[in-house]
Each structure stands twice: as C-alpha cells, then as structure tokens.
C-alpha cells in the first residue's frame, strides 16, 4: 500500500527573471509504514516539495503538471477547506525549529488540547491523551509539563513536544523537515530513535528531509536524492548508499567528511554551481558538473530502473 504517491510533479514560480522551474518531473512513493528520506543541497527543492504536498505554495507558485495522491485523493486538486481538514489530522509536520512551531503564549497542555478540537472528547479526556502522548516522547513529569510554556523546555525537549503534537492525531503521514539539525549528536540520536519507535507504534509513514547523510542512513528505509528540483536517484537506503548509480549521488556521498577514513586537510567537493532554474539546460541538469559526461547527456536523461525500486535519472545507469 502506498500512502503518498507523487507522479511527474512540476512546480514553477513566477519571478522577475521569468518562470522558475523549481520541481521538474518529480516522482516517488511513500509506502505504508516506511520512512523515506529526502536528501539534497539547499535550493534543490526540498522545501518546495513539502509545501506542494501541504498545499502551502507561495502565491507566485503553482503546480503545472503531475499529481500528489494521498490516501486516494489528488492533493493538487483539493480545495482549501479539504486541505485544512487533512493538515494536522492526516498529514502533520515537524520543523527544524520547534520554537517556531509552538505558540509561546499558550501552555503546552492548552495547545495539545486545541489540536484535538475535532475529536469530540471531553476536556479531561483530551488532557489525559495529551499527558499520555508527552509520556510517550519521554517528557519527565508529563502532567506538570502540560501547564508549562514552550520556553520552559530545553531545545531537545521542545522538539519532542513538537513531535508529540504532530503525532497526537495519529496521522497517516508525518513530514519531518530537518528535525534534528539544531541538536547535538547525543540528542540527535535520541530523537531519531524516538521517531522510529513512534512511527512503529502509530504505524504511520514518514517523509524525512535532511541533508545529514548519517541520519538518513540510520533512520530511513528508502532514500530520494534530489538535485536542482529533480529526483536524480531513488531506492532503498542500502541500494543508494552502497551502490549509487547517479554521478551526483555518488559524489555527494564521497563528499561527506564522515566517509574520509583517514584524517585529511583537504575535503572533496563537487566543483561548479547549481544551474539557474529559470534557464534549465535542455539535457541532464547535472551535466555541467559531472565528471562522467558524455554526448548523450545533452538530451533529457531517462529514468532508468537499475534494480527493483532503484531508479536513477542518468544515461550511464543503463550502460553499466
């Protein structure tokens, strides 16, 4: 079963310099009960992707083509009222900065009660559920915590409160956008372990956005590698991390300082810049920076299925 299925999604923004093609022919699935990681450099379209799913694209952005199917409904065709119903109930989000997601002037308990406005339960039932949820994310003294305000929690705890709130309504899909970036390594590991545990308990799917390859390798079942608004490679985490088939994915993995076993003063990089998305090259979008470029790269590259579930958008993936 697939919870979220994105097919040939194209998103553009109108800007002063012309139409900016932010997502181009993006396709991937988030299967039931799987954690799917999205990696890519800043500006590769990760945030646009989230906003497109949530129906929160900026006014100058629009979905030009393609579909986002969530539990049988195409989100690109839904009206604002229906989207409002889905957000927070069936699809919820955790962001990088928990303080930005929590209301500073309301107690945590009040905010958690508000989330349950549709449940039809009594106030004390709601509070009992909130308390149980806080206990599940290991907030000590959960009952007293309900009366506290967001600023009274430490950074790691705040993020766990935000996770508790996001999972309160047992959504089918949790979108986590760099949720551990602001935490140190011990808290980061504790948070991703907690996420996995809750995901199994609630039996939801997770779309996990990060540029930390180590966290992705550890948490995710599947990976989607994005570059300049395109999905250049996708597959299981093992397939992509052990046998990357797109040159960009391979270079990205090589560049991680964690992959350099010996200590080096000179870290590997990918020379060049992301092309201007207002003037996309006609062929492969990575060709200008690719060290394996061939003539065929001037044409639109095919999505090559190299193995079951492992797809790379590169002409060379076929030949090998």
């Amino acid at each position, binding site marked *: 079963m697939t919870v979220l299925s994105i097919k040939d999604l194209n998103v553009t923004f109108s800007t002063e310099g012309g139409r900016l093609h932010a997502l181009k022919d993006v396709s991937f699935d988030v299967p039931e009960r799987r954690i799917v990681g999205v990696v*890519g*450099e*800043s*500006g590769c379209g990760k945030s646009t992707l989230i906003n497109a799913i949530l129906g929160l694209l900026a006014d100058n952005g629009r979905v030009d083509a393609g579909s986002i199917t969530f539990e049988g409904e195409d989100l690109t065709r839904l009206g604002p009222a229906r989207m409002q119903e889905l957000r927070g109930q069936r699809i919820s989000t955790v962001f990088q900065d928990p303080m930005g997601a929590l209301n500073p002037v309301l107690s945590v308990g009040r905010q958690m009660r508000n989330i349950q406005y549709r449940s039809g339960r009594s106030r004390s039932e709601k509070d009992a559920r909130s308390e149980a949820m806080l206990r599940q994310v*290991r907030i*000590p003294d959960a009952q007293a915590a309900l009366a506290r305000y967001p600023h009274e929690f*430490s*950074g*790691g*705890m705040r993020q*766990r409160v935000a996770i508790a709130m996001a999972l309160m309504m047992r959504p089918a899909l949790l979108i986590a956008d760099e949720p551990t*970036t*602001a*935490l*140190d*390594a*011990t*808290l*980061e*590991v*504790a*948070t*991703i*372990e907690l996420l996995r545990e809750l995901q199994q308990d609630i039996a939801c799917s997770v779309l996990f956005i990060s*540029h*930390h*390859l*180590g*966290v*992705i*390798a*550890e948490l995710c079942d599947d990976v989607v590698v994005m570059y300049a608004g395109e999905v250049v490679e996708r597959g299981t*985490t*093992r397939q992509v*991390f*052990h046998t990357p088939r797109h040159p960009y994915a391979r*270079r*990205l*993995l090589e*560049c*991680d*300082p*964690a*992959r*350099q076993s010996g*200590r*080096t*003063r*000179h*870290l*590997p*990089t*990918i020379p060049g*810049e*992301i092309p201007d998305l207002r003037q996309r090259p006609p062929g492969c979008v990575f060709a200008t920076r690719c060290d394996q470029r061939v003539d065929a790269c001037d044409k639109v590259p095919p999505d090559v299925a190299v193995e079951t579930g492992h797809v790379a958008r590169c002409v060379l993936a076929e030949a090998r």
Partner: protein
Amino acid sequence: MSRILEIRDVEVTFEVGPLMRRRSILGVAGVSFDLHSGETFAIVGESGSGKTTLACAINGLQGISAGSIRFDEHRIDTLGARSMKPLRRRMSMMFQDPVGSLSPRMKVGNLIAEPFRIHGIVDKNPSVEVPRLLSLVGLTPEFADRYPHQLSGGQARRVGVARAIALDPDLIIADEPTAGLDVSVQGEVLNLLNDLRERLGLAMIIITHNLHVVHHVADRMAVMYLGRFVEVGDTDEIFRAPRHPYTAALLSANPEPDPDKARDRIALPAEVPSLLARPAGCEFHSRCPWVAARCMSEVPEFVQSETRKVACHTPLEPGARPPELEVTQ
C-alpha cells in the same frame, strides 16, 4: 609558534527572571585555553552549552564577569570600545547565518569594503582590494555588483570569509561556518578556511556541532557542557580515546552515512539540566553512565597530562564501556 590568545577562568553571567526574583546564570563557567598562531581550535558542544557566548566574549561583544582574556599579550576584557577598536581589526568573526550576517541593502563590493571604511584605512584602494579578496575566496569580480539575496548559501559564506580576512587578521572566530550548507559546499568552505590559514598564518577558532568536521580541520579541540570545558586536547587523540564520558558518548553517537554500520552506542538520558539548576558535584553526573557516589557531591578538578585536560574523577580508559552495558544497537 607564538601565543595569540590566552583565556583564563572566563565567566559570563546573565541576569534572568522578573525584577524582584532576578537570578544570575552562568553561561560560561570558568573556561581557560591558549591559542597559537597557525593553529585551529574547535569548540564542540550542544546548542545552549555556551559556545557562541564564549566566542562573543573573546572578541568583546559580550562582557565577562570574571577571568581574563589576553590577545597578543594585551589584556582586552577590560578595554573600552575605543581602545578595543584597533585590536578588533586583528580578530574577525564569522557569524552563523551566512546570508543573515550580510546587510541585504548593500552590494557585495560594499560589504567587503566596509571593514576598510569602519577602521578608517585609507592607504588601501577598495577598487583593488575588493577584486583581490573576491578572488582569494574563489569568486569572480562580477560578484561585487550582486546583492546578498542573489547569492547561494555557499557564495554568501565565501563573501563572509572575504569580509573576515579583509583586514589581514591574526585570528578568525568562525561560528558554525558550515551550518546549513550541504556536504559539497561545506567541503569548499572548510578547504578555503584551511588554505587561508596556511597561506596567511591565521589562528582559527571553529565552533560547531559537526564532529566529522572537527576531526578533519582542527588541531586541538574542546568539548563544552553547560558552559564548561569538560575535555580539551589534541583532536586525533580525543577521537582515538575520549577520556570524559560526555565526549565518549558524543563520539559514539555520531551518525555515519552507512546503513549497515554496526552501532555501538553509549546511551545517555536525554534530560539536559537547566542552567538555573546546575547539578551539584560533577555537572554531568545526572546523565553519566559511569556515575559514582563522589560525582554527586565533589566537583572534579582537571586531570592534566601533557596534551589533555579532563574534568572527571575517573577518566575513561581507552575503549571503556558503560558499566550497565546499556548499549543500543
């Protein structure tokens, strides 16, 4: 190597709470270290551990309440803004957010020329200096006409580096120089800083929570916890054999980009104590897997060897495992 910076027992306090119940908290609680020219020193620790506060204290953006800071043998913590100014041009700071630390209304060329204006340097011609600095950080002269919003994160970071090196400083303090950058751009920025350090003989302090970065760029490192250094020493040695339990836990927690890597982790309770209620004794005891009775009452002194300082009653032996064997796989 000459000593460029001498930090001794520095404390920074903040006043918090409502007027009648005002309390002071220690953001930085007695930090000492030396830095020599040409050396890179990394400070790691979780957010809120006092890394940025310490950096701001060193370059005078934050007053200190105890201790001393000497820069090139000048005592600088007692200097007023006027007498600090000539020294400040010799130390520069790169702030966390690469785009946010550039004024959105100024062009790159002006941003890079700004340090010369601020310090009244007239013997250098900006129209020569700006292209020179841009090329030093690997940008073409055309970038001088761009505004910050027209730059990518990596380019904005390079402009930040150009500003930081504009006045030939002796010391650069880089606060999370690679936060928010992707691995490939991160490598470029670190390589750039490293080249400049070698070519210009700079001393550098890098503040980060990315341990992989520390391993590759820093000669020495300090691990900070609740405003204190708990372990200081040679980076290679610390990575090989951490002696403070917090360092050991941090290094074991470092996620690595290999889905099949066996993970032998030291699990820590996720409850970080509040600075308002510092634990008695060793401040790490509430999370330490090796905790013993004396840790709860006695404050540990630094155990010092030639290349290492550890604030722990019973520093770890190489490869030590937590006693309860609470190992997560």
